[in-house]
C-alpha cells in the first residue's frame, strides 16, 4: 500500500526530515541532487535517529556514531562494529507530494 507522506516542497535539497505516519515506525525523508530517499528513521547500528544526522557527499551520516550510508545503495562506511547496511522504502515524487510504500518494510537496494 502506497501512502502520502508530505508535500514535496517540505524536503529541501540536502536536508533530512522525520515523519511519524500513523501505524508505522518513524521514517526519514531526504533529498539529494533533486532525488528523494525514504528510509526508517532508525540507524541500523544502535537505533538512533538518522533525521538528526545529516547528508554529506551523497551519504546519510548518523550523528551519533558517524556511520555513513550511501544513498543509492545503502552500503555502510565507517561502520561501528556490527553495523549493517541501510535499507530504503520505495518512494515517488508525484504531483508535488511524496509517496512511499511502507508496508512490508524497507528493502535493501
Amino acid at each position, binding site marked *: 500500500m502506497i501512502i502520502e507522506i508530505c508535500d514535496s516542497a517540505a524536503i529541501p535539497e540536502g536536508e533530512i526530515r522525520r515523519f511519524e505516519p500513523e501505524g508505522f515506525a518513524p521514517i526519514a525523508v531526504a533529498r539529494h541532487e533533486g532525488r528523494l530517499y525514504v528510509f526508517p528513521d532508525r540507524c541500523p547500528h544502535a*537505533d538512533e*535517529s538518522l533525521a538528526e544526522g545529516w547528508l554529506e557527499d551523497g551519504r546519510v551520516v548518523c550523528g551519533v556514531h558517524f556511520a555513513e550510508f550511501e544513498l543509492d545503495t545503502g552500503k555502510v562506511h565507517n561502520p*561501528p562494529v556490527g553495523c549493517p547496511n541501510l535499507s530504503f522504502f520505495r518512494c515517488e515524487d508525484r504531483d508535488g507530494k511524496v509517496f512511499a510504500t511502507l508496508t512490508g518494510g524497507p528493502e535493501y537496494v
Partner: protein
Amino acid sequence: MCDTGCAGNAGRPNMAPVYPKAGRYPDYARLVDRNRAQVDRRVFVDEGVYQAELQQIFARSWLFLAHESQIPNPGDFIRTSMGEDDVIVVRQRDRTVRAFLNSCPHRGNRVCMVDAGSKARGFICNYHGWSFGIDGGLRGTDGKVYEKDETFEKAQIGLTPVAQVDSYKGLIFGTFDPNAPSLLEFFGPFTFYLDIMLDNDEGGTEFIGGAIKSEIDCNWKFPAENFVGDILHAFWTHQSGAQAILGGGVDLGKRYDELAFQASVYGHGIETNLDKVGNTRTLGYPELVDYVFDLSERARDRLGDLRSRAIGAISSCTIFPNFSFLPGQNTFRVWHPRGPGKIELVVWTLVNKNAPDHIKELYRKGVMMTFSPGGVFEMDDGENWEYSTRVNQGFVTRQQPLHYALGLQSADLDRDLPGHIHKGSLNDANQRLFYTRWAEFMEHDNWTDLQNGETAPPQKTASAAE
C-alpha cells in the same frame, strides 16, 4: 541513590553543570609576607596549598586556551588544561568558540583522546559510546537501550561548558567562574602592554609550527614569577648560552637606567627594556633583527614611541596565573600545574600574520633553538626551577626564609604608564606583586575584593579609597 526506593521511583538525576564556589584561606594568604618581602617556601611544596590553588586560582581566573589561528574552522578543536582540568576547545558552526570539560557525564571517561584535530563531527566516548556534538550536547547513546527507558532525559545531559570564553586580539581565554568579571576587566589596563606583541602590525597574529610539550619537575610559580620579572637571572643563568649564540654576554643596552621598567596590574606583569631588539638578537638571525627594527619604526603610529621600542627588546611577561611570553623571542607558553612539584609546559611561536614567510620560518627555527626542551635557554632555566622546588622537601630547609626584596624603594610615581611601575627591570617588584595577587586569591571569596586590593591599578585603588 535509592532514597525513594529502587522499585522504579528513584529520584531523577540532576545533570546540570557544577561550578565550584571559592572559599577563604587567610592562613595560606599569610604565607606571602608583604612587610618583609618574603614568601614562605610551603607555597611550593604543600599539598594543601596546592589544592587551594586549584580551587581559588585555577577555578576562577581567566586562563589561556588557544590562539584563534589554531582552530579556524567549525569543528576544529584542541585539547588543553585549565589547572588540572582537561578541556576541549572547539570552534562552533556559528564561528564562536566554546570549551568543555573533557569528561563524559556517564562514568567520567575522557571523550577526546587526541591533542588537536580539524572539522570534528563530535566526540564519542570510548566507554559506552555516548556521543556529544561539537556544542557539547548529548546527541545519542545506544537507542536500543536508552530509548526503552522512559525516564532518560537526553536533553539535559552534555559536556560541562567552561563558564565563560572570550578572546583578546587573537588569544582565547576561559574561566570556570560564571561570576568572574569580563576578560577585559581581568586584564585591566594591562592590555596596554599586551598590545606590544598582539597589535604591533596590521592583520593580527597567528601561532605557527605546532606546539611543543615537555615536563619540568618544578612548582608552576617558579616559571611564572621568572617571566613576570626576573631578567636578573639572565646575567648568570643564560650567560654561557648567550655567549654561544651572540658571541657576547647579555647586555641591557646603554640607556638601561633611564628606560627599563617593570609594570604590574592585578599580578600580571611585564619587565622591559626599550632597546628594540635585545631579545630578538638571541634567536641568532640578523634578518630577524632587521625585520624588528623595521617593524618598530612602522609600529610607532599604532603603539607610540615607548611601546614600539619594546617589540623586540629584552623583556618578559606573565599573565596571572600561568601564561607567559617573551616579546622579541615570540615564544608563548602555559605552565600547567601537575601537582605542587611538576608542570606540563606547552610552547608555541607567535608571528604577525603579515610577516613574510621566510621571517616566520626564522622565528620558528629560532624559538626551537632557544626556547624548546632542547633549546639553549630553556635547558638553563628548567634545572634551576627543579632544584628551587625539590630542596623544599627538606623539613628544615622549607622553614627558611626566601628573599624577594630587590628594589624595595624603586617605585616610579612619575612615569605616566598604566599599572604599578617600578624603575629598572633588575628588580623583584613584579614578583612581589605576583605573590600579592596570589595571596589575594587565597584570601578572598569574591571578585569585588579581588579587583580592589593592592594589586589593582593605582588610580582605581585611589578612587576606591575616596
